[in-house]
């Protein structure tokens, strides 16, 4: 057999067998910055900023292209290869297991931060930072909107002339017209007539306005007694800024809850069943002769009736939560309430 002749393109082949990396270069970074400046400039100032960005991009792009094509244009490339010294296993070295082929590595002092240890720490640390940057705003978005901007809706119930003295009304109204029917609420309202304000001694209107949210678990409490049609009285329909308001005359002997049988007297004091306190009440104001409902507050109990009633008033608490007695310490922090 004849000895193999070297093929004519051996030299060129060998070129491709060598590591074939371009030298490290910063030009692409400058090019990228130029592109970013162009894009930012399109938003801020297309003529000036974008032109500057274009110049940066063109200059760095040219330098990059020149570097990248150096080999093609026949210029010699000098690439310093990365090497590390290989040593025989000896003193201060960890030898590979006898049954395995391997290279002995220098034993590293545990206190030394090796490259792999640094990269491990950097990966975990950066991962933690990125995870935090993503998680914190998302978790905040999930949790906080329920507690922020709980704005108070004033409810216009119509002129005071709709409320004859000492007459109870089952009043239904829409709290937030934007929310619609789902924000319809019910209150039991009685006009107590005018009464002297304890501070200013002026005569001011007095209303008893009881929320129908049961103090047990929030079911709708009903008036125990005949209403409009049975009494032979007309239900009043009013349209206000909040939408339709209905006033149904009623003669209540008290209030009862259909869900679990809680019972209350006409002032909202619990008389029987599972509720933990009296019914909540609405605060109110009179604006240009119209009755305006404000926010609700919680009541432990009421002594007396009508304008003379002494109301033991507390910050609004959810149904089933004690506002007085030792059990109130179970609820030290209430979420923000309007």
């Amino acid at each position, binding site marked *: 057999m004849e000895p193999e002749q070297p093929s004519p393109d051996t030299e060129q082949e060998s070129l491709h067998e060598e590591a074939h990396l371009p030298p490290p270069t910063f030009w692409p970074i400058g090019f990228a910055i130029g592109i970013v400046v162009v894009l930012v400039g399109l938003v801020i100032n297309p003529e000036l900023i974008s032109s500057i960005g274009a110049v940066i991009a063109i200059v760095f792009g040219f330098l990059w292209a020149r570097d990248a094509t150096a080999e093609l244009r026949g210029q010699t490339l000098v690439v310093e290869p990365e090497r590390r010294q290989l040593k025989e296993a000896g003193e201060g070295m960890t030898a590979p297991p006898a049954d395995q082929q391997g290279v002995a590595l220098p034993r590293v002092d545990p206190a030394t931060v090796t490259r792999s240890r640094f990269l491990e720490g950097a990966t975990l640390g950066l991962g933690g930072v990125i995870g935090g940057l993503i998680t914190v705003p998302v978790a905040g978005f999930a949790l906080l909107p329920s507690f922020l901007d709980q704005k108070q809706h004033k409810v216009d119930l119509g002129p005071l002339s709709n409320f004859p003295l000492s007459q109870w009304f089952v009043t239904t109204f829409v709290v937030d017209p934007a929310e619609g029917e789902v924000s319809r609420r019910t209150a039991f309202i009685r006009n107590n007539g005018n009464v002297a304000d304890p501070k200013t001694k002026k005569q001011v209107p007095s209303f008893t306005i009881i929320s129908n949210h049961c103090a047990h678990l*929030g079911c709708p409490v009903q008036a125990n007694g005949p209403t409009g049609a049975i009494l032979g009285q007309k239900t009043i329909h009013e349209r206000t800024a909040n939408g339709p308001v209905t006033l149904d005359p009623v003669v209540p002997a008290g209030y009862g809850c259909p869900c679990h049988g809680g019972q209350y007297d006409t002032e909202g004091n619990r008389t029987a069943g599972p509720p933990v306190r009296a019914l909540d009440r609405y605060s109110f104001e009179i604006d240009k002769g119209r009755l305006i409902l404000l926010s609700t507050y919680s009541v432990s109990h009421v002594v007396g009736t009508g304008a003379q009633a002494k109301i033991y008033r507390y910050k609004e608490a959810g*149904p089933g939560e004690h506002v007085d007695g030792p059990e109130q310490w179970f609820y030290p*922090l209430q979420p923000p309430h309007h």
Partner: protein
Amino acid sequence: MAVRRKPTRAEIRRQRMEELINFPLDWLEERSGLIGGVRYFLFRNVPSDINWMQTLGSAALTAFLVQAITGVILAMYYVPSAATDPHTGKPVAWESIVNISDNLFMGWLVRGMHRWGASVFIILMFLHMGRVFLFGAYKYPRELNWIIGVLILVMGMMEGFTGYLLPWDQTAYWATVVGINLNGTAPFLGPWLAQFLRGGQEISGETLTRFYSLHMLLIPGAIIALIGLHLYLVIRLGVTSPPWSKEAAGMEPDEEEPARLRPGLTRPVPRPAGASAMQAEPGGRE
């Protein structure tokens, strides 16, 4: 001297068919190991004297899959909006449920499967739990799987609670009022939990949308993850033999050995001198 008989035409055809069927499976197995993985997942030792009680777990899993599939389809038609339809004066969410039940082809069936399947899922989970309790299958080394199972049960109940609001009728609304207020009476964080669930101080359209999101995304995701852990432990630890069985099919530890002396992460296997240097895997699994 064995005479090689010439294969008949039918045998050749049969062999070709087998090659045809095996080729894609071989291709898949070579690249992914999936076929072996599926065998590892499905095939395990089962004592010969088990009974139907030990199928309750897979029955509960099937019920969950039914819920997942019918739920995905229902989500194509259901609209979680508390807004009022201006034409009918009815809430949009409720109308979309009526549409599913009354107008859409087979909608009544799929919604019925989802609605009744919910109860089936919970009942099967309880029956499965009872079987595990009565067979003593919660004991070492399976305590962790009992705990994961309890978490799945809790998640299943949360699915029931959040799903109950979605029809947006009077039952749904007041059941949710009572349910949220019950949570609200929990000491210290209860009022905060209730306000988070409501998405504010009162039940509103936001409550409906967040219950919908919890019901079809967050809680099912958690259940799927927990089922994965649950099954992983079943595969790792094997099937518990019934109390009457003489066969040990699972990975039960040697009863002679006290628990504290069994190998673990911090307790290497005590081995006689000269034994293999390889340390046994924690848990002593082969």
